[in-house]
């Protein structure tokens, strides 16, 4: 049987709070989040970086946490689905998913919400094509994507309605 390396210390920020854990260097960030930090909102769908269910924001950029080795998380600022709402106050994207039927079984939803948040940060008023491309890394088997697109459009409208001068 193979020898074991030592676990390493990882210090990072997760959802705004400093966290320190120990993990094997090649452990998946996905498992570090779910097992060491008990943040089970981020899901495993494929373990190959294809489905996006494991998506999180790392230093503001969307990544598939199943493909990030633990050692890479050291020093990073990570945001998971648990950090999208502000307490009980849902984000515009989450409200929109609720209103528009963007979630059916919900397993892809955490990753889809992360992808939608990342998309709207890059393109506050995304075109149809930009929405499709922005979400192409997140697979959904239930919805056929239609109401997810609608949710992104609704979130975008809701956000621009809140901007100063738009009342």
């Amino acid at each position, binding site marked *: 049987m*193979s020898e074991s*390396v030592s676990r390493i210390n990882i210090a990072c920020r997760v959802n705004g709070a400093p966290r320190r854990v120990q993990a094997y*260097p090649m452990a998946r960030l996905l498992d570090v989040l779910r097992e060491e930090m008990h943040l089970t909102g981020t899901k495993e769908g494929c373990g190959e*970086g294809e489905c996006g269910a494991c998506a999180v924001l790392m230093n503001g950029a969307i990544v598939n946490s199943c493909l*990030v*080795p633990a050692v890479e998380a050291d020093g990073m600022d990570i945001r998971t689905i648990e950090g999208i709402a502000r307490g009980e106050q849902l984000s515009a994207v989450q409200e929109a998913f609720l209103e528009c039927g963007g979630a059916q079984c919900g397993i892809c939803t955490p990753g889809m919400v992360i992808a939608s948040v990342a998309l709207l940060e890059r393109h506050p008023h995304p075109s149809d094509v930009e929405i499709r491309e922005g979400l192409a890394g997140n697979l959904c088997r239930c919805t056929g994507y239609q109401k997810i697109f609608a949710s992104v459009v609704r979130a975008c409208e809701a956000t621009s309605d809140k901007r100063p001068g738009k009342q």
Partner: protein
Amino acid sequence: MRAYIPAYDLRVPGSLSETLALLSREPGVWQPFAGGTDLMVLLEAGKLSHKRYLSVAKLEDLRGIDVTTADVTLGALTTYSEIQNHRLLQKEFPLLCTAARETGSIATQNRGTLGGNIVNASPAADSPPALLVYDAEIELISARGVRWLPYHGFHTGYKKMQIAPDELLRAVRLPRRVKKWRQYYRKVGTRRAQAISKVCFAGAALVEKGTIRDVRIALGSVAPIVLRAVKTEDALFGKKATPTIIAAARETLAQEIAPIDDIRSTARYRLRVAQNLLEEFLSQLAK
């Protein structure tokens, strides 16, 4: 998840020189680990046989995109996202930007690196055909020194390349010679996004008064390596893209490529589509 994670070592050397020293002291023992978007997939499938890695992800010497009047040099750690967002690359090297945009998903593009893509040496890689068309050169460094070589010829066989066990890919340099060239890139994947290519075609040509003065054609997924179609190029120098020339070029291409049946597609499909993409490229030159 099929790997025994505790067996895998991933160290973070503090500097480039430390990295090169380790590679030199124990050649073959350590392999570099960049974005991880290829290696982690292999790991999780239980197929990553090598166990000891050096993370090069934080080495500043491998970062950055430098522009001079003669060329653009991309550090090996340049991500696909960085490529897509770079103004000059968009303007002068659009094929590379298109390739970057069609690689995996945005999440993959934020982590995957150009250097990693090159040394992973998949014949289905999306950026290498563009690099071949642009006459890219690559820089390899080791404790012994630095050397530059043309990217064309770097891959010598399936997953075989001209890099020594103590060498690290540092940069990719693109000569700024294609400003007036007509450029074409088309990847045909298993679906419109997040797809491994079945056929990938990159082409660029300098056309004057309808005549092809110079041309570069490169394809992915139709041979054990990403391929410059030099015979097809030779058949086109000094010619106009007439239907006869196009038909002959299709035939020449068929001689040059060696597509296979595999889990994603068939040899016949790849051959036909490769020829069709060539024709589409050449037809655009005729306009």
